[in-house]
């Protein structure tokens, strides 16, 4: 009766013996893994180098994730010398020649973050441990960015953040191995406030609806502090659950609160729903305190604008980048058209700001490796810290050494009244120059973190 068990056990025994027998000589004879003792994790072997692109492929930000992945693929093509080279032609640093990174052909692996920190870390870990990725990039929410950034710090890998807007990423959760090109809540506030004061006056009463999680808090704080500094008053601020889909009960009290501006610190589907509700309640036509009632959305994205449809018309917000930037605001934003052209030729539509930041991050990493002459994360960190560059579509940009945050102009946009097509939903109102959105590294909104030492890993 135990025949099969016996066989199974016998098989295991044989397997063990065989395994041990095979392993024995190598344990004693060879200093295994000798080649990899280069002083840092996942040193590229042979003539290829692997990058890991960790983007949301399912969940609420799947659309953004798909666009990010497109941008990554394009960047890899350009690095390997395929296609027209995109922004490599306009980038102020000229080390990228279309021969990969330091002569090694670029390969990539992709994973699904599911917009959950656990899943994102599992995916990133498998890229690091299994696929030998030397750099991880991507992500479309700050929770994920912070989680993966911490992981990369521990593992000794460079993290080039994708779309993450909360102050924490380069504030209290900043890490030496992590870099963010995207702008942040503070910059949104600093860029928007003067425009708001100009358009709507300095004597305004604001009502905040804020998504009840970290990004919501930092954004509300940033907008509040910037607008109050210009004379606005904050009447009330209400937290809304992230899972909320119907905001009527939150919108209803706004008109009677004495406020004349509604600030929606919402993103993605949240913002689409809350804005739609607000418009349905007639807030756009309403008047309060003798002024026209206004709605503000601090962080805008093309995908959100598409979701909100014509409700977005006339609403002010901020963006990291827009594909029309060079056409409308001139040669300062060179690189934009080169990128839009090669992206459009490959995929048939203009890129989103998420795609832009991911593309730029990949090129910046490749360039930093070339300039450093090494894949060692510490050398890359050194090359990126304090790096000033231009020609990446945002004008002159600085990667600040103190917090690994990029400083560049911020685009203030408004929803178009009469969009010509589904990709042309926003108009650029103004570009706030970088000086106005720069803050000291120890600004209270960013306090409590430390970069620490760069970690090269094994």
């Amino acid at each position, binding site marked *: 009766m135990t025949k099969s068990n016996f066989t199974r056990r016998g098989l295991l025994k044989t397997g063990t013996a065989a395994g041990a027998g095979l392993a024995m000589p190598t344990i004693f004879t060879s200093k295994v893994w000798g080649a990899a003792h280069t002083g840092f994790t996942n040193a590229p072997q042979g003539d290829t180098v692997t990058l890991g692109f960790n983007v949301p*492929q399912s969940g609420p930000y799947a659309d953004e994730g798909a666009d990010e992945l497109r941008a990554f693929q394009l960047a890899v093509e350009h690095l390997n010398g395929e296609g027209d080279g995109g922004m490599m032609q306009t980038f102020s640093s000229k080390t990228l020649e279309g021969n990969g990174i330091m002569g090694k052909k670029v390969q990539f692996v992709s994973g699904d973050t599911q917009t959950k920190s656990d899943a994102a870390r599992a995916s990133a870990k498998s890229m690091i441990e299994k696929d030998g990725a030397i750099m991880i990039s991507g992500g479309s929410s700050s929770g994920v960015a*912070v*989680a993966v950034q*911490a992981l990369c710090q521990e593992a000794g890998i460079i993290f080039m953040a994708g779309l993450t807007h909360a102050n924490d990423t380069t504030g209290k959760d900043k890490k030496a191995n992590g870099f963010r090109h995207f702008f942040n809540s503070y910059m949104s506030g600093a860029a928007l406030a003067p425009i708001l004061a100009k358009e709507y006056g300095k004597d305004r009463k604001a009502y905040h609806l804020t998504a009840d999680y970290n990004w919501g*808090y930092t954004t509300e704080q940033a907008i509040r502090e910037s607008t109050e500094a210009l004379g606005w008053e904050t009447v009330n601020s209400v937290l809304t659950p992230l899972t909320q889909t119907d905001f009527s009960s939150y919108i209803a009290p706004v008109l009677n609160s004495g406020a004349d501006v509604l600030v929606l610190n919402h993103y993605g589907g949240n913002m689409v729903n809350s804005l739609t509700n607000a418009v349905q309640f007639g807030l756009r036509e309403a008047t309060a305190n003798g002024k026209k009632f206004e709605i503000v959305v601090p962080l805008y994205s093309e995908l959100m604008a598409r979701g909100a449809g014509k409700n977005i018309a006339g609403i002010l917000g901020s963006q990291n980048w827009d594909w029309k930037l060079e056409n409308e605001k001139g040669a300062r934003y060179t690189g934009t058209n080169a990128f839009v052209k090669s992206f459009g030729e490959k995929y048939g539509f203009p890129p989103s700001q998420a795609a832009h930041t991911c593309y730029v991050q990949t090129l910046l990493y490749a360039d930093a490796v070339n300039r450093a002459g090494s894949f060692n994360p510490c050398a890359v960190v050194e090359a990126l810290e304090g790096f000033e560059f231009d020609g990446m579509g945002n004008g002159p940009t600085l990667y600040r050494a103190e917090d690994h945050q990029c400083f560049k102009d911020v685009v203030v946009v408004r929803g178009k009244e009469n969009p010509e097509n589904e990709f042309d939903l926003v108009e650029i109102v103004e570009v706030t120059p970088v000086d106005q959105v720069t803050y000291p590294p120890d600004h209270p909104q960013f306090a409590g973190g430390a970069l620490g030492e760069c970690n090269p890993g094994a």
Partner: protein
Amino acid sequence: MTDHTTDPRTAASARPATASHATETAFLGLGPKDFRLLLIVIALTMLAPFLLNPFPAGSELAQFNAGYPDLMQRFVIFGIFAIGFNILFGLTGYLSFGHAAFLGVGSYAAIWMMKLLTMNVIPAIVLSVIVAGIFALLVGFISLRRSGIYFSILTLAFAQMSYALAYSVLTPITGGETGLQAKINDPRILDPGAGQSLGRANLFGLEMGSSYNLQIGDWSFTFNAGYYLAAIVMLVGFYLAIRLFRSPFGMMLRAVKSNQQRMNYTGLNSRPYTLAAFVISGMYAGLAGGLMVAMDTQVGPERMFWTASGEVVLMTILGGAGTLIGPVLGAGMIKYMENIVSKINDNILHQWFSFLPDGLEDALVAIVYPFIGKGWNLTLGIVFMLVVIFLPGGLVQGGQKVARLFRRNNRKGGGAESEAAKKQPAE
């Protein structure tokens, strides 16, 4: 519970088995079959780095290798989670839909231990079990007043409450959406190097992340300290679960599953038993949570989301509810799909089918593509449906069917797990 009619019969057949265990105890208080099962599980876990990396590193098939530390750790940690869940669901039939809450609470307890006390994993793991146990006592005390669907809904409500609290209301304690991580400026009062450098989870100096790579020809095998710690903890958990399954207490729990009303009519108060099972099962979940933090020092609230609770139900049913080894197999299966199948993208597919003519290649890729990469959930769903329809006893039943093909004459014989499986067809 649909198996009322079958249960007395199987329970009767189980009696002699347990009786014989008492007489022919092989070792460690286990019967020979259980002992054999334990040995098999020990062998499987200890040799996992070899077993999970069957393909040479550079080959096309290396895509399917699962022998890297993170996934191996996940296999055993979710194995623990599922073993614990099975103690509740497999034995008493109470379907908890909020078990991830205990996992999450354990994780938060562990990370706070690491932040405040030391990066040594022992205090973290111990506290995670205790805290999860206390929380389970609270939730169980309330939820177990009802049974069936009402119990499930109550546990689900608790778990969603915990999730919502951790996500926003308790942000100062839980870090909100971003979660908690080890930081340089953590107090870590027992660590000498605190405040200067980022601590790493360790066991008396042995870092959980440290690995030894063994290169044999084209194959490479990774032996990871954290994995072996988690594996040993799982083996202990597995051993305890066997003992519990075979104990009079376990028999009592089975009685609850087969007919709780009858039990109550005989004047026996079954709630202390179910509550004990609930707490034990919650402690297993807390242990899994603590180990997750020990392996990867980060906690986020989505660990408590209802989908995470649902996942452990899937694991248990997929593997075979009520069997000893089933939940571990189910956990392995789901984690494998999630981590390996989800990473196959269309580029890789095109490589696979590149030997075909262009049109055919594209057609094949188009057919397969929805089932891999981000479509891994679809594949998992199909597998799950097939298992539930054709193998109600889970993967374990599948194994038995295969085994039976080889020994038609000896139908009564079978491993310890098969006996357990017979008793508990999945619901």
